[in-house]
């Protein structure tokens, strides 16, 4: 029995999932070669929601900023795309990338205003700002005003020559953005920043007392999230080939659904948005024709989840089976017969397992 | 067997997963004044909060006035006649002095205590009755807190460190009033850091250390060395 103490970051489960993940991404990259149009379209939608949900999770679940106004940046991204391609002739794919930083720039004055609020009032304040953007763009007639506009044919053809190529190109861009967003979030959470965020979320006062600059950290995350959301928003509008204020800045599509995905999937865990998105699309496949019943069901589902399973499915899995996919915890391996695990939300469970001692925190 | 107004057997208290009390056996008869002493963190405040239902507990029995009260919510226990003067006064900042006193009578128990009675014992409060509770000095706030607890006409009064943060002369005044108040059959448990003060007013003393009772008896029967040993555990 060795007496040294080791610190590990990944578990066997997470290593397995890493391999699985690589395989999956590889498969997805090859999809345009054997998938049809509607499958590609659906996959892009899934990538979009995985990315949006992961970003919202980073904001609310890790940084403690519950925003009901992220649709502002979805819309800003979309309108930036249209403005850039129509007025400057920028290649559409490049414009998708440039739309991100543009949305991020808008996040600066936006953040300055909404950060005057805390908690639930921050939530509503962020919504108000999103509404301001929506109403303002409805007045901008060069971009279609209240009824919106379509992407001019020349620009559509600029993306790629054939429809199939165009679909593939948009698809790969979507896949790239989703993978990129997940990677960046993972890196942030694994870094010192991730610790800072968890500290802020657990106790702002305590975090400040150990030197974390709450305001700056939160603002930075808000800024980055806005940029990524803008990118995604640009992609959404590109795929739709059309934009209108109500669609681009829709609370339902870009916030309500995202919130449900994260709440049901599991807030404050990276696995949550993934699980939630999959579940969401499965539900959509079966129930979406029921229209309002479907949304009523979603609303109720979210309420019930929050009451009985506040950490979502991912949280339940993590606590029940100590299952985690992303190696975001730290496991301390001691050469002694005790097994202590700390769940992400601070509750500890002392179990009397007699396996090689691991103290884990996730 | 003399009637026990309050009795606990094997009382354990928890803050989340952290255990603060490890099986307290305690009893008090009507009219008695018992002091609970012990150093910081010994579990004295936790004990009072456990009695009144503010802390999660496990116990063999907790009975008050002949009824089992373990697991009952705080507001029911108050309605049955227990009242707590909390540590740090904890007056309601949005309420005036008089409103703070009046709300003490929310459970509408019958008894000798009402606004006039409280003002008779603490005349200075009558002058300041329309001021917000927090505009008073520490000692006066303590009077309000005490008066507020009395307005519930309790059978058992619990006082948590009423001398904390007050000047000695103020402490003496408060304890004088307390003795006068408790002269008419109010049963009192007081948690007190000031051992001398506690021993002066108590019929019996319990000493807590690290969540357990380590000493119990009449002040006259307990020697100074005995108490120090129990208090500090040396």
């Amino acid at each position: 029995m060795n007496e040294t103490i080791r610190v590990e970051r990944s578990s066997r489960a997470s290593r397995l999932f890493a391999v699985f993940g690589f395989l999956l991404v590889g498969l997805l990259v090859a999809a345009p070669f054997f998938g049809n149009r509607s499958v590609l379209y659906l996959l892009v939608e899934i990538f979009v929601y995985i990315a949006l949900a992961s970003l919202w999770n980073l904001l609310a679940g890790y940084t403690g900023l519950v925003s009901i106004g992220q649709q502002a940046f979805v819309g800003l991204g979309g309108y930036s795309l249209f403005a850039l391609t129509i007025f400057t002739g920028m290649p559409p794919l490049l414009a998708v990338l440039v739309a991100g930083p543009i949305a991020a720039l808008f996040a600066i004055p936006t953040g300055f205003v909404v950060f005057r609020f805390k908690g639930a009032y921050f939530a509503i304040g962020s919504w108000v700002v999103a509404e301001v953007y929506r109403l303002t763009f409805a007045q901008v007639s060069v971009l279609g005003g209240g009824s919106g506009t379509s992407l001019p044919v020349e620009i559509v053809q600029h993306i790629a020559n054939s429809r199939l190529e165009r679909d593939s190109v948009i698809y790969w861009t979507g896949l790239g953005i989703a993978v990129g967003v997940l990677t960046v979030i993972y890196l942030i959470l694994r870094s010192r920043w991730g610790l800072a965020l968890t500290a802020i979320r657990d106790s702002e006062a305590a975090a400040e007392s150990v030197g974390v600059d709450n305001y700056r950290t939160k603002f930075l995350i808000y800024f980055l999230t806005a940029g990524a959301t803008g990118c995604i928003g640009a992609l959404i509008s590109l795929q739709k080939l059309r934009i209108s204020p109500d669609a681009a800045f829709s609370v339902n599509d870009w916030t309500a659904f995202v919130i449900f995905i994260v709440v049901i999937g599991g807030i404050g865990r990276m696995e949550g948005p993934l699980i939630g998105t999959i579940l969401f699309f499965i539900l959509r496949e079966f129930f979406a024709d029921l229209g309002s019943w479907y949304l009523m069901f979603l609303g109720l589902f979210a309420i019930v989840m929050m009451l009985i399973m506040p950490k979502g499915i991912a949280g339940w899995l993590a606590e029940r089976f100590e299952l985690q996919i992303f190696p975001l915890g730290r496991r301390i391996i001691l050469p002694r017969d005790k097994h202590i695990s700390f769940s992400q939300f601070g509750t500890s469970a002392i179990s009397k397992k007699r396996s090689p001692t691991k103290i884990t925190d996730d | 067997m003399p009637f026990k107004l309050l009795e606990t057997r094997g009382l354990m208290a928890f803050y989340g997963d952290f255990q603060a009390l490890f099986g307290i056996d305690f009893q008090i008869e009507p009219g008695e004044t018992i002091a609970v002493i012990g150093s910081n963190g010994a579990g004295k405040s936790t004990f009072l909060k456990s009695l009144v239902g503010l802390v999660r507990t496990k116990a063999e029995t907790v009975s008050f006035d002949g009824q089992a009260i373990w697991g009952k919510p705080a507001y029911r226990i108050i309605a049955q006649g227990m009242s707590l003067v909390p540590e740090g006064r904890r007056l309601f900042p949005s309420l005036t002095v008089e409103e703070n006193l009046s709300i003490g009578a929310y459970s509408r128990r019958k008894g000798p205590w009402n606004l006039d009675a409280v003002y008779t014992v603490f005349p200075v409060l009558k002058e300041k009755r329309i001021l917000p509770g927090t505009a008073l000095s520490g000692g006066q706030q303590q009077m309000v807190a005490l008066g507020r607890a009395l307005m519930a006409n309790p059978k058992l009064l619990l006082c948590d460190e009423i001398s904390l943060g007050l000047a000695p002369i103020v402490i003496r005044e408060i304890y004088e009033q307390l003795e006068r108040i408790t002269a008419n059959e109010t049963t009192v448990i007081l948690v007190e850091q000031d051992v001398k003060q506690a021993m002066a007013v108590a019929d019996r003393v319990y000493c807590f250390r690290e969540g357990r009772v380590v000493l119990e008896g009449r002040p006259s029967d307990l020697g100074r060395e005995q108490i120090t040993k129990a208090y500090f555990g040396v």
Partner: protein
Amino acid sequence: MDLPATLLDGVLLGGLYALFAAGLSLIFGVMRLVNIAHGDLILLSAFLALTVTTHFPIHPLLSLLLVVPLMAVLGYGLQRAVFNRTLGNDILPPLLVSFGLSVFLQNALLQIFRADSQRLHAGPLETWHIDLPFGMTMGALPCLMFIVAVLVIGGLQLLLFRTALGRALRAVSDDGQIAQLMGINNAHLYGVAMAISLAVVSVAGVFLGIRANFDPSIGPTRLIFAFEAIIIGGLGDLWGTLAGGVILGVAQTLGARINPGYQILAGHLVFLAILTVRPQGFFPRSR
């Protein structure tokens, strides 16, 4: 632009907004709960009144006799069955639960009543005018709305500061733990607070329905108006909320005069401007 008339319209509209806001302000004060479904509950009241007046030939204002108690009971039940379980230090649960409720309500109303625009008909009250000096006129209905708002807020103040119940509500909002020591059943009192809040909401809903066309989707915007009125006026003071509502109303009517499409946007911009310059609002109550 007829400035005095516009201003008057704005002030009277502010009364409605203050009614929207009063219920929200109360429960935030008592239990720090921001009910995202607040606006949708206003709509629910309007639709309830619609149902009542469709089945009984009575005036919408008279339907309040039924709608107010119904909503109050609903509020009590909602609080005790759902919201009480979300109260605590974490802001997420109450926020997300009320968000879910908002989506549920909107779609339930949509399912039952369809998306058609509705209106409550108040008969001759809709056209009565009161003649004022300087050639101005004031609609009887907006005037009544404003008076009711003042009465409701006055009533709430009376309740909070002159009754034992109000004292208990203030105590609970100060310190929930110590309130229990007074013998207060917090769960019950929170339920009462929500019942009062929804009673006020129902009055707001009926006036909304009389004043303008309504449909299930306009709930969230009413929530935003309520929120803006509260923030402009300053947290913690109901009269401040009335002032906030008036300022918002005036901002909107001025905007509408310039261009009808600018009405809501004007309100938002004034709100944001005030927030930037004076984030504590105009009449904050310091705690």
